[in-house]
């Protein structure tokens, strides 16, 4: 009963604080809006990717009288590639260079003389590849032509090993009939495959700000000590454990209200779809709240000042958010490995999978990992509380 009196009073104190209302309720929604709009280009938009055509200039050798070798013609007429590569011929290297500079071409290939003959003789062949200004188009064109050269050289090596008669068949490798793509794109869950920037940052900001509620709890616990109100509280017929638990419950109630505000606010204002599992989403929010409060407990008990605790808590939250890709998806493997040990990573995975309507066992695996981390933090907080206590 007294625990709930303290919790309710804590809730009321927080609710009267303008900074709590702004930082915990308004700021996350603003950040979701800003990040979701600013970084929307980094995320899928639920539509299939369409490759832009690439204007490729080919420079044949004078020895071939400007004619493109058969192997190259076979390559550019392959299904799939002929839709991407818009073939243009040029008389000289200088001409294609000039066109690349003026953006009249996206990419150029300079073919050495006697290209097909060299292939026929089993000699090593190379193409001179000149990239244009568009990085993405260069990447696609590089892939096409480098793969072609690699295939040719691979075929020649095979022929050398397996016999001369096979060498005659080598040019046919490049011009072999198209047998369709060797890789098929499937969907593991046969459900959604991608999420929007607003969804990604809504999840990331929800997690980060729920963790920030721990900062609020830590400041409140240490604030009682610094303002000497803890002294008076402890002179009342209440145990220190009741005071501590009451304050943590009060902060947790604020955190749950905050989670509801962010989820409903982002859904209503920005159309963020949180997926078809509201109860699981609630469970994830409760686990994050538990992790946040236990982290706050640990930091509060080992810190002597509110300022010190605030600094430490902020550093931990920001570091966890960063390595788990909460500010932006990180392509570095190292961060992925570290991120797997954070609350943010598993909370994020749970939410994103819910948004993608993934299979329930995948979602439950992520929630299970989050629960394990929260349980570990809770155990550590309990042990620390027993050792250190909460005193004026």
């Amino acid at each position, binding site marked *: 009963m*007294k625990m709930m*009196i*303290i919790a309710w*009073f804590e809730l*009321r*104190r927080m609710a*009267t*604080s303008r900074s709590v209302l702004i930082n915990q309720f308004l700021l996350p929604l603003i950040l979701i809006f800003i990040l979701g709009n600013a970084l929307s280009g980094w995320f899928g938009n639920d539509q299939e990717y369409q490759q832009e055509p690439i204007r490729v200039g080919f420079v044949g050798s004078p020895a071939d009288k400007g004619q493109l070798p058969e192997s190259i013609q076979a390559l550019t007429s392959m299904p799939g590639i002929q839709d991407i590569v818009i073939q243009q011929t040029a008389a000289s290297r200088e001409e294609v260079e000039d066109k690349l500079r003026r953006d009249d071409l996206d990419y150029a290939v300079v073919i050495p003389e006697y290209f097909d003959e060299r292939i026929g003789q089993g000699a090593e062949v190379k193409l001179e590849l000149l990239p244009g200004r568009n990085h993405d188009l260069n990447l696609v064109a590089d892939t096409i032509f480098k793969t072609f050269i690699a295939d040719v050289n691979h075929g020649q090596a095979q022929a050398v090993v397996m016999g001369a008669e096979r060498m005659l068949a080598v040019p046919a490798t490049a011009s072999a009939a198209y047998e369709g793509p060797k890789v098929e794109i499937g969907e593991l869950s046969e459900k959604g495959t991608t999420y929007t920037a607003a969804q990604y940052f809504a999840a990331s900001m929800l997690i980060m700000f729920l963790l920030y509620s721990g900062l609020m709890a830590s400041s409140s616990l240490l604030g009682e000590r610094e*303002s*000497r*109100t803890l*002294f*008076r*509280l*402890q*002179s*009342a*017929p*209440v*145990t220190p454990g009741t005071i501590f638990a009451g304050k943590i419950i009060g902060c947790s109630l604020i955190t749950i209200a905050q989670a509801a505000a962010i989820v409903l606010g982002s859904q209503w204002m920005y159309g963020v779809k949180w997926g078809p599992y509201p109860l699981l989403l609630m469970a994830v929010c409760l686990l994050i709240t538990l992790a946040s409060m236990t982290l706050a407990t640990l930091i509060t008990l080992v810190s002597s000042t509110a300022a010190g605790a605030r600094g430490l808590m902020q550093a931990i939250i920001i570091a966890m958010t960063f390595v788990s890709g909460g500010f932006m998806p990180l392509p570095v493997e190292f961060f992925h490995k570290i991120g797997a040990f954070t609350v943010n990573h598993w909370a994020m995975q749970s939410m994103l999978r819910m948004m993608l309507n993934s299979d329930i066992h995948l979602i439950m695996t992520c929630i299970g990992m989050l629960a394990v981390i929260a349980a570990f933090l809770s155990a550590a907080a309990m042990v620390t509380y027993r050792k250190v206590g909460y005193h*004026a």
Partner: protein
Amino acid sequence: MAVFLQMKDVVKRYGGKLSVDHMNLEVNEGEIFGLLGPNGAGKSTSIHMICGLLPKDQGSIKVDGILIEEQPLEVKRRIGLVPQDLALYEEMSAWDNVVFFAKLYGLRGHLLKERVEEALEFVGLQDRAKERPSTFSGGMKRRLNIACSITHRPKLIIMDEPTVGIDPQSRNHILESVKTLNRMGSTVIYTSHYMEEVAAISDRVAIMDQGHVIACGTQQELRARVAHEERIILTAEGITPDLVEELTIHPRVKRVIHHDNEIEIYVPSAQDELQDILFICSRHHATLSSLQCEEPGLETLFLSLTGRTLRD
């Protein structure tokens, strides 16, 4: 009168240092008990132990016959502590502050409302109940600090230096409140390093120094211990070391304390020695601006017991 608080052989150490050194004390039910001593004498530490806020290292403390280590919450229910530092939630109204602490003592419903109104009226803040303490003066905050401790009508009210840093009007209000609370049936322990305050309201007084109770009794009993000394306070321009020296070596002067333009002279009888003292001052060309003769008080007792003044 029944003993309400009993401390027996209580010891408290901080690190290796003794803060309270084998302290024995008894406070009777219904009295105002003054605990006097300089800063660092061990008053606050003793109070924290009585309230169960600090564990003692040795000895026993009984409140209303209950051992504190056996039933700490029962003991706390009987005590209303007015802490030395203001302990208020500045962002909540005066009303909310008092209600919150009253609820922790188990008050509910109509009784809660009645007691909170009563407490705020008692400290003269009923008209400011809806305002936040951040808008209050220092004296008003001190009064609210008291209101938060008395809603449950504690049998023992402990006031730990409740008048630190406030204006004379609020100080008088607080001292009157202490007397009223006592008349209403509460036993009061009042700690201060202001001798005048303790002398004005206390039935019995204990003087603490360096963790010990060095004297304890009614004011009359304590004064009787230094009845052989009276104090003459001279304020003068032109006090020289030679003047102080000559006063010190006077055969019937016991002690001379010199601060700036003031000299305190302790003699067996002010009436008998005054003429001699004025003559010495005149010989050293000191121009007197005031002269005061005092009968022995608690300050004198403290000085005679420790060789120091309370404010040293």
